[in-house]
């Protein structure tokens, strides 16, 4: 059967034939790719939105709807397109009656293996972080991934102190991770024994994000409470 595909040393292929083959194959592949991209784009975007919504509703219990915003020194705008310069993204979650249930934002810092990205919920009334969930991580299974399940670690985020100073420019106390069992203050995060690096990454990510976001948000909290 292979007699036809292995003729006795064929004459050299012309350069044109080679370029033509690659050109035709590349064009066919290009068309296939564009078609797939266009036909799956909507489903992928919808999936991402559902995943985000599920994560937000998990860190803010009682939420029924959500809206993403950009906040920057210039003001507050509904999120669409690229963020304004110096802007940060956050999500306002409301209950069925339209009351503000809480604000959520994403935070990230370098963990043991890669970026640890988490979502945290901020309660403007109590000025505390009262919800937390892991968005993505590549930490060691069975060790670093305890940040998702360890009940004592999750207790850190019942009412994590995130008060702003009187001028509203920075957190009164920086949020930081401390060694397992060493937590003394409401702004400290008790690390998981054996997963200190990952735990500290969570703390650093939240501190960096909240330290920047909360001062920007402060002038707009009242407006967010009203807006449906």
């Amino acid at each position, binding site marked *: *059967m*292979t*007699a036809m*595909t*292995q003729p006795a040393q064929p004459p050299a*292929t012309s350069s044109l*034939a*080679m370029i033509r*083959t*690659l050109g035709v*194959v*590349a064009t*066919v*592949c290009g068309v*296939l*790719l564009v078609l*797939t*991209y266009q036909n*799956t784009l909507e*489903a*992928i975007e919808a*999936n*991402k939105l*559902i*995943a985000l919504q599920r994560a937000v509703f998990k860190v803010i219990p009682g939420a029924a709807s959500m809206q993403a915003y950009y906040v920057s020194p210039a003001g507050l705008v509904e999120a669409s397109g690229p963020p304004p310069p110096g802007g940060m993204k956050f999500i306002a979650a409301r209950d069925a009656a339209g009351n503000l249930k809480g604000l959520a934002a994403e935070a990230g810092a370098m963990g043991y293996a890669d970026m640890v990205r988490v979502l945290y919920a901020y309660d403007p009334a109590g000025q505390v972080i009262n919800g937390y969930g892991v968005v*993505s991580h*590549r930490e*060691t*299974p*069975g*060790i670093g991934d305890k940040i998702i399940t360890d009940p004592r670690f999750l207790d850190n985020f019942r009412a994590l102190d995130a008060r702003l100073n009187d001028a509203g420019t920075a957190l009164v106390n920086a949020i930081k991770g401390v060694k397992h069992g060493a937590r003394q203050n409401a702004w400290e995060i008790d690390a998981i024994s054996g997963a200190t690096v990952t735990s500290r990454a969570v703390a650093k990510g939240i501190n960096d994000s909240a330290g920047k976001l909360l001062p920007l948000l402060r002038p707009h909290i009242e407006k967010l409470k009203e807006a449906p």
Partner: protein
Amino acid sequence: MIPGREQPTNLQEFLEGLWQQNPVFVMVLGLCPALAVTVSAVNALAMGAATTFVLLGSALLVSLLRNFIPREVRIATYILIIATFVTIVDYLIAAISLTVYEALGPFIQLIVVNCMILGRAEAHSSKNPPLRALTNALGMGLGFSLGLLALGSVRELFGSGSLFGIALFGADFQPWVVMLLPPGGFFVLGAWLLLFNWWRTRSPATLKPAEVQGHG
């Protein structure tokens, strides 16, 4: 595949990859995804299905174009075709389930460098008509999935105490975490290879066809 040799039947083509030349247990090809994503049975199945899809797509296209592709540019062409199907499967998985997509992470894109797929294009699809190429690719894909599933279910069983996400051993089970780490992948693969080789050497009847085809 060799002039003068009797042409294998469709069933033989299919069984070649599924059993006699199983990519994981006999040819030991495509180990990067085989070791990296098989921490659970579901991951293994998803990776197996994605790889099978790429195998089928590239086998069909390579086989259709086999008389049209000059030898000099065949590798570039195969790589282009394989990369296209990998990107397609990447979009498809993200559209079907983000959970699976995130669990498999960068390993979907890395199917592009799975040596088994380029090996099939070069050794089989480029020399056979479409139906035959597809049959062989399906067998190889299922054989690969079977291999991954064998690794994934054992690792999930020991490493998480569950199978397909269903806990089997109750709350007292202390997971054997090393099974989920890279060394665990090597342990389990080694154990399976041991089992397969032992089984193959003790039944000479099954050894022969594999040996014969191994040179083709």
